[in-house]
C-alpha cells in the first residue's frame, strides 16, 4: 500500500498531534518496573561513587546541572538521577557524553555506572572510599542550619 501525503497537509495537521502521545491498544501500555527487575542488574556499590564524582567534577568546571545536561545532550532529569540516585543506571550513551564534557575517562565511568563489569577489587574499594570521603564536611551556612534545625524539630515532634 502506498501512502500519498503532501508536506502541506502534514504542516497543517501537525497541531492536532502537537505534544500529545498517540499510543493505542492494550499492547502499547508500558510494562511495570517490578517485572523488569529480574533482568536489570541490582544496584552496585561502585555506583555510590558515580554521583559524587559527576557532582564534584561538574562544580570544578563551574557547570550548572542544566549546562552539563545541555552540553552532554542528555535529559536534565537523567543528570539529576546520576548525581543523586545510586540505584539509577544511566545508559552507556549518556555516560559517554557526560564523560566527554567533564573530561573524565569514559571507560572508568562505564564501570562505575554498572554498564561494564568490574573485576578489580581495588577499583571497587577505591570507589566506595571516594564516595565516603567526598561527602562534604564543610560548616553549614546559616540558611542550611536553619532548614536542618526546622526539619529535625519537626521529626522530633512525630510519634
Amino acid at each position, binding site marked *: *500500500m*502506498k*501512502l*500519498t*501525503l*503532501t*508536506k*502541506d*497537509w*502534514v*504542516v497543517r*495537521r*501537525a497541531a*492536532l*498531534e*502537537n*505534544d*500529545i*502521545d*498517540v*499510543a*493505542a*491498544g*492494550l*499492547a*502499547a*501500555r*508500558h*510494562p*511495570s*518496573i517490578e*517485572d*523488569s527487575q529480574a*533482568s*536489570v542488574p541490582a544496584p552496585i556499590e561502585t555506583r555510590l561513587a558515580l554521583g559524587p564524582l559527576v557532582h564534584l567534577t561538574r562544580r570544578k568546571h563551574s557547570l550548572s546541572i542544566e549546562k552539563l545536561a545541555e552540553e552532554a545532550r542528555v*535529559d*536534565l*532529569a*537523567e543528570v*539529576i*538521577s546520576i548525581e543523586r*540516585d545510586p*540505584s*539509577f*543506571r*544511566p*545508559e552507556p550513551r549518556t555516560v559517554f557524553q557526560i564523560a566527554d564534557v567533564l573530561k573524565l575517562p569514559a571507560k572508568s565511568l562505564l564501570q562505575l555506572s554498572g554498564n561494564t563489569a568490574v573485576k578489580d577489587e581495588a577499583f571497587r574499594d577505591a570507589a566506595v572510599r571516594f564516595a565516603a570521603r567526598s561527602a562534604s564536611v564543610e560548616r553549614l551556612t546559616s540558611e542550611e542550619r536553619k532548614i536542618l534545625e526546622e526539619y529535625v524539630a519537626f521529626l522530633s515532634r512525630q510519634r
Partner: protein
Amino acid sequence: MNGDISKVWLVDKKTGGLVEASLYDGITEAHLKDVEKSWMPKLRSELQRLRATGRPHPQSSHWNWRDKVEHMRGLLAYRGFAVVHEGHTQGLMLVKTTHPCRLPIQRGKPLVYVDYLETAPWNQRELVMQPQFGGIGLVMLAAAITLSREEGFAGRIGLHSLPQAVKFYENCGMTNLGSDPSKQGLPYFEMTPEQVAAFLEK
C-alpha cells in the same frame, strides 16, 4: 505485507521543521531488532528513571515485560506498518481488517481496527522531557485510513486509545464511544467516512 515504502514527513521537535521519513507497509525482522536493541533498553531506563524521581510511571499496571516482548515478536504475523527515520524505527502500528463498526450510524459495517500503535520511547512525552519526533500518529492514522479505503471500507477505522492519547484522537475528529470494559476500560474511538474526509481534506 507487500513491502511498499512511502515517503512521509515527521516533525523534528528540536527545530520545529519537517524531516523526511519512510512508511513501510510491513513490519520486518529489522524493525523488531531495532525495537529490541533501542526501544526496550530506552523504555526500561526511562521507566526506572521515572520511578527513581518519584513520578508515578505511566500506564504500567496489568502489563509485564514478557507480554511486551512476546507481543512485539507477534507483530511479524500481522499486517503492520513502520515509520523509519535516520535508520531508526520511530513508530509501529498493527492493524486488523476483520472488525465490525460499533457506532450506530455504521454499525456492523467493516472497518480497519488499529490493534496497536506506539512510538519509540524517545518520542513519547510521557517518558522523556523532550520528544524527538512528532507526527507519527498523523502518518499512521492516514495509513490506516488509506488501507481501509483500499479494502473497500470507505476509510472507516476504529481503535482503543490509551488515556494519554485521547486528546489526539478527539483532535483528529474521531467519535469517542466511551470506556470499554473488555479492554480494561480504554476508551473506544471510531472514524466515519465523513470524519475521514474532513481529516484528509487539503
